[in-house]
């Protein structure tokens, strides 16, 4: 399959990429990992007149840390984040990165590309929304830093203007007594999840929750923040009953579309079950336990 013909530009820096995109006009697109854009172009669902390739720009694939946060360059591949010890200090980042699609896609796909695309089934947005995350962008008017919750506007829509690019993702390091987990269920490895649940808990002590953040993926046009589920956890002893109440609230908050991945009822039940287990794992992690979770599918083990 051949995409429509396009002009190809290899940017040497992010600044140059922004200028090129400004000059080339509306029909130009930035090419990061290409794992969504290239298939769309092959099916001719996308026909950009020009591509500006970001893959040859150095210095935008970093994963750094200081005392307050983790800084991830826009071109960091999912596989690089999965292998990063720095990213691994926030386990939910590893849960997400290590299970996106398959090994080959993780070697190409980038965190900046994923956030810029804002697919309703994308993995990064729900995960990063349970943490305090900001997106640093570079555009024709300069740089700006936007909280992730404000960055995402709708399905496939961000606040970024034409020729504006994601430069860096900044994740605030959660407090010591916290734990998070991300669970996604997919029909097979190479596809988007049918539903996913991300949770980040800050614990007061072993069993009591001081604060909670719950995000559900694939069950709305954007990640769904389940505030009622958060309220069932915040300030509570996390008994099985409290966890079940949170899962019930999440099921009520989910607003999925029926599609080949499942019916509305199925996805609601699935997201509730995923959240329940994610909360249990987040509690264990808040106590310092190492637990490996992430994407699940038939045949993985």
């Amino acid at each position, binding site marked *: 399959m051949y995409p429509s013909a396009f002009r190809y530009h*290899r940017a040497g820096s992010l600044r140059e990429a922004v200028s090129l995109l400004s000059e080339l006009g509306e029909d130009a697109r930035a090419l990061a990992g*290409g794992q969504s854009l*290239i298939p769309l172009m092959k099916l001719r669902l996308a026909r950009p007149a020009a591509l500006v390739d970001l893959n040859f720009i150095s210095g935008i694939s970093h994963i750094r840390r200081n005392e307050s946060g983790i800084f991830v360059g826009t071109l960091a591949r999912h596989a690089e984040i999965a292998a990063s010890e720095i990213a691994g200090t926030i386990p939910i980042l590893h849960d997400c990165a290590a299970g996106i699609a398959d090994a080959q*896609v993780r070697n190409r796909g980038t965190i900046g590309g994923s956030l810029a695309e804002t697919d309703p089934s994308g993995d990064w947005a729900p995960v990063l929304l349970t943490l305090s995350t900001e997106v640093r962008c570079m555009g024709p008017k300069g740089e700006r830093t936007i909280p992730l919750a404000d960055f995402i506007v709708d399905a496939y829509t961000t606040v970024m203007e034409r020729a504006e690019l994601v430069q860096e993702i900044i994740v605030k390091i959660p407090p010591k007594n916290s734990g998070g987990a991300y669970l996604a269920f997919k029909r097979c490895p190479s596809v988007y999840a049918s539903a996913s649940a991300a949770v980040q808990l800050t614990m007061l002590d072993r069993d009591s929750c001081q604060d909670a953040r719950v995000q559900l993926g694939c069950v709305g046009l954007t990640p769904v923040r389940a505030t009622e589920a958060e309220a069932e956890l915040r300030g509570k002893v996390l008994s099985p009953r409290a966890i079940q109440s949170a899962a019930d609230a999440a099921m009520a908050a989910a607003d999925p579309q029926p599609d080949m991945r499942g019916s509305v009822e199925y996805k609601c039940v699935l997201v509730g079950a995923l959240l329940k287990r994610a909360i249990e794992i987040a509690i264990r992690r808040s106590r310092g336990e190492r637990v490996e979770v992430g994407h699940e599918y038939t045949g*993985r083990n």
Partner: protein
Amino acid sequence: MVVEPRLLLVELLREELNLTGTHIGCDTSYCGACTVLLNGASVKSCTVFAVQAHEGEVLTVEGLARNGELHPIQKAFSENHGLQCGFCTPGLLMSTAYLLSKNRHPSESEIRKAVAGNTCRCTGYQNILKAIRAAADLMGADNKVKPNAD
């Protein structure tokens, strides 16, 4: 060489360079039959433009054997009946090569995750997994995947 921007890496390999060992299976970034190593990392060559391999190193299945001698991964697949129709095999060999370049002693779970992006429509997965375990054993300590001299 000069290529049209829209030429996919897999088309460059097959149509321009006559390296037809890399197969096109689904052409929709799903099946992994077209897997090659680009600068040491496994990629689906149907989802990378040829221009993106500019000044890069591409290792295809043709680059595994050396001096007419099969690569240990190929031997392991042959000896363990790790293929039936063989269509998915080049991709699986390259995914295995990538796995073993990163991880000398993969666990069962790591092996399964490593080839999760490769679909075998004959469903011969049990012997494929067996072949990958055998390849890891065969390559022992020195399992760095090296391209041949060509």
